[in-house]
């Protein structure tokens, strides 16, 4: 009822939102404020049924903190983008365009839903930094479970302030323009470049940049005026009398802290030091929610590099084929370990291991050992047996054998392939290859 601003309805603070904001602040290395409160920001707009937005203007819930950009994000040096404040506020209603021609429909279901606004300091200097900042913010918030941060769903949105300055003068001497409603990383980058170019051209021509709010036309790659400073409203901020201030104790902050997962920076360091994984594998795993914990629950007693390789190539390959997230996958830690151990101890071949993985991810509930029994798989590891098979293949393909002996080395692959076929994939390719070579050499010397 608050969504539709029914007369007599009162707002109620959802404690879960305070909890998520607290996580976000800790994740950004900021300080949770012991006292914060809510204010009304007044303006009339069709997506704002109350006539004001409940926000935190005077006493936000979080202050300070930073996000670090460095080599991991493709920069030469490491820099910090500082956070000014983190505040809780109400979302507006969603405007739906194009459903009813000539009308904008208003979806009030989003009105009054809480959102976390993070305001950065003016530390970002390039479009690339801005893009990486947002990307890193997404990763961080996903990692600590604050939001799925999907830009296409609007679960992360950003407004960007752009200003340029003359070389040699103060970095903040320019006049800023705010770009609103940028809805993808690519759009953010392009809009900033377009706006910076526009402002540079104005300054080069001897003009003055005017403070205003602008939108971005992605088709034409230019920004356009949406509201000038003159028409910017006085928001008439007023403490909201309906919501008491939030008081937070040190004990509560400690509890939130203790429930927070390890932050990506720390995880990254640890995965490198503890397991000796490559940067590529670490990045891949960190960016998939739940992956690091999956890795760590499978790695004990196994070769960490091989486990990581199997996860990042085979498991991820299947995930992307299925357009699935690891968190939604049906593969269990036990199944993965069973499969991996069977492979390591030579009970199955890697082709069979891959097939098991597919079955598990299709929803097979049985364990790896049960499945190996069901398939009747056993690796032919007896050299004599393989030699029998290979001899038969060589006998039935004398042309290839002769060709190899004349120096056509690629004939080898053909023979190995035929032999693998004959073993129904139950022999290890390296064994087959070794024996084929052995027998060919023996032929040669005869």
């Amino acid at each position, binding site marked *: 009822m608050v969504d539709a601003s029914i*007369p007599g309805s009162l707002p109620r603070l959802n404690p879960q939102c305070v909890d998520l904001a607290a996580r976000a602040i800790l994740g950004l290395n900021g300080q949770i404020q012991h006292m914060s409160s809510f204010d009304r920001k007044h303006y009339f707009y069709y997506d704002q049924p109350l*006539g004001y937005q409940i926000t935190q203007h005077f006493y936000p819930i979080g202050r300070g903190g930073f996000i670090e950009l460095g080599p991991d994000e493709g920069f030469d040096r490491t820099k910090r983008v500082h956070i000014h404040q983190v505040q809780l506020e109400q979302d507006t209603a969603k405007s739906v365009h194009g459903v009813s021609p000539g009308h904008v429909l208003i979806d009030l279901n989003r009105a009054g839903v809480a959102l976390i606004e993070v305001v950065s300091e003016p530390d970002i200097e390039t479009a690339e930094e801005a893009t990486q900042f947002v990307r890193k913010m997404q990763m961080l918030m996903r990692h600590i479970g604050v939001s799925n941060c999907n830009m296409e769903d609007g679960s992360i949105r950003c407004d960007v302030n752009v200003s340029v300055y003359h070389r040699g003068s103060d970095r903040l001497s320019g006049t800023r323009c705010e770009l609103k409603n940028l809805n993808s990383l690519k759009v953010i980058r392009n809009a900033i470049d377009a706006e910076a170019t526009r402002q540079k051209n104005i300054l080069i021509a001897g003009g003055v940049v005017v403070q205003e709010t602008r939108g971005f036309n992605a088709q034409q790659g230019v920004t356009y005026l949406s509201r000038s400073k003159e028409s910017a409203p006085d928001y*008439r901020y007023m403490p909201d009398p*309906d919501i*008491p201030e939030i008081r937070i104790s040190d004990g509560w902050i400690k509890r939130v802290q203790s429930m927070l997962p390890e932050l990506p920076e720390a995880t990254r360091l640890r995965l490198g030091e503890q397991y000796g994984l490559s940067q590529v594998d670490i990045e891949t795993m960190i960016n998939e929610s739940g992956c690091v914990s999956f890795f760590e629950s499978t790695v004990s007693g196994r070769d960490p590099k091989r486990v990581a390789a199997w996860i990042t190539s085979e498991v991820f390959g299947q995930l992307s084929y299925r357009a699935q997230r690891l968190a939604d996958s049906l593969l269990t830690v036990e199944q993965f370990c069973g499969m991996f151990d069977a492979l390591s101890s030579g009970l199955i071949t890697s082709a069979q291991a891959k097939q098991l993985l597919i079955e598990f991810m299709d929803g097979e509930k049985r364990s790896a050992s049960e499945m190996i029994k069901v398939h009747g798989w056993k690796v032919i590891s007896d050299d004599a047996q393989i030699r029998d098979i290979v001899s038969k293949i060589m006998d039935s393909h004398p042309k290839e054998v002769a060709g190899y002996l004349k120096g056509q080395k690629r004939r080898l692959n053909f023979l190995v392939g035929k032999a693998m076929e004959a073993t129904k994939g139950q022999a290890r390719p390296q064994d087959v290859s070794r024996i084929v070579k052995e027998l060919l050499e023996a032929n040669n010397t005869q």
Partner: protein
Amino acid sequence: MAALQLNLRGLSKHRAMLLRRRSYHHPCADTLNALVGAPAAPARPTPGELSGWTIGLKSNIASTLLRTTCGSQALQTYTSPGDSTAWRLLQQAGAVLAGATNMDEFGMGSHTRDSMHGRTANPWDAERSAGGSSGGGAAAVARGLCRVAVGSDTGGSVRLPAAWCGVVGFKPSYGRVSRAGLVAYGSSLDTVGLLARTTADVRQAFAVLAHPDARDMTCMTAHTRHRISHLCHTTRQDRPNPTGALPLAHVRVGVPAECWVHELSDACTAAWRQACHVLQALGCSVERVSLGHLQSALPAYYTVALAEAASNMARFDGVRYGEPSGMGVRAGRAALLGAEVQRRVLLGTYVMGVEARRRFLGPAQRIRRLVQRDMDGVFALPNAMRPGGGPGGRGVDVLLMPTAVGAAPLVSEETAEEGRCRAAGYVTDVMTVPANLAGIPAVSVPFGSDRGLPLGMQLMAQYGDDHLLLDVAEHLEAAWAARAPRLNTT
């Protein structure tokens, strides 16, 4: 008139009144224009603490049975999708709805004159003001159209009409009764209040309403209520026990010197003196106290209330409520809202602006804190929200002062006076607003008379001390009841 003779006094008459009501169509008619809407079908009384009690619900308190018009054209066809917490609790206790009571538009007025339903007449003299903004409720109770009226009190809107219509009007501590479903005027000042013939009825209805409510974050939690009652007990545990002859021997009464304003009528001054004597005779100690910032309370009140009002009224932008004007927000609101509401919204909008905030709203909020500190400085009971700093054992328990500076004025004179000076209309609230600024409970009981018109005497107590306040009010009311003039109901 013949119809009205049915409802003189007593409970059985309420039943008769309800039967009579059936013959009228919505909006129902009474000669006072106190009730402005009746439920489609009268409810059968159900068992409960208030079984069969008839309730008048102010038009800004939501129920699904009545239109919640707030006395405004903007909401003239509006029925709430849900019940207010207050009405839900009363209904659960077995009460039945008599109808919606008239009010000044959105509670902005002191005479129940500025309403889309027209003016409510004072039952003692139709030419006089019923007080406001809960004037419909006060008149309905005085006439016996309902046993209890639920009103709202932002700056005296329950107590002033109670005083002028000769009934009891109670504004509880802020947060004692949930505001959920009360259409907001000044959210930090608004309280749901009660009007009835007797303090006993008020007390019984209050017991039903005073509960925590998750729908209102400013409503006291069970924990706070418990803490306050413990505080009340420990503060007064060493006081003498009341005896039959001196039932209020444990109570200390303060008389604020600053309330002795020159606008006070002679009859009012006399009644105030007499009330002091009555309380002394009942065993109270009576002493003079000082509330240094009382003089500034009225302008501070209007600044804070109007800023909050402008904010709360922002939702009535002509898009969702009222007939769509197609004229945009500015013209649409001008067409939907009455002159007084527009005036207050404009003033409130002004004081919230960046520049005016520094000059008006900031100082007003500081004065509000000073008024609160004044109150904490005279009461023996510490303020449960701001511990420390009180006078402790030397303090008083209740304050005694008139509810208004005189009896109900003639509406014609009042309107003419406002024509000369707009702010004149706001002076009627001078005695009542301090309680709202401080969030403390206050009650007006009929005491004294002026040329046949009733006067109201007001008691205030520390935040949370509602029960002691009602105890003292009950004795004061009883002392006057025998001598009180009878309302001529024909």
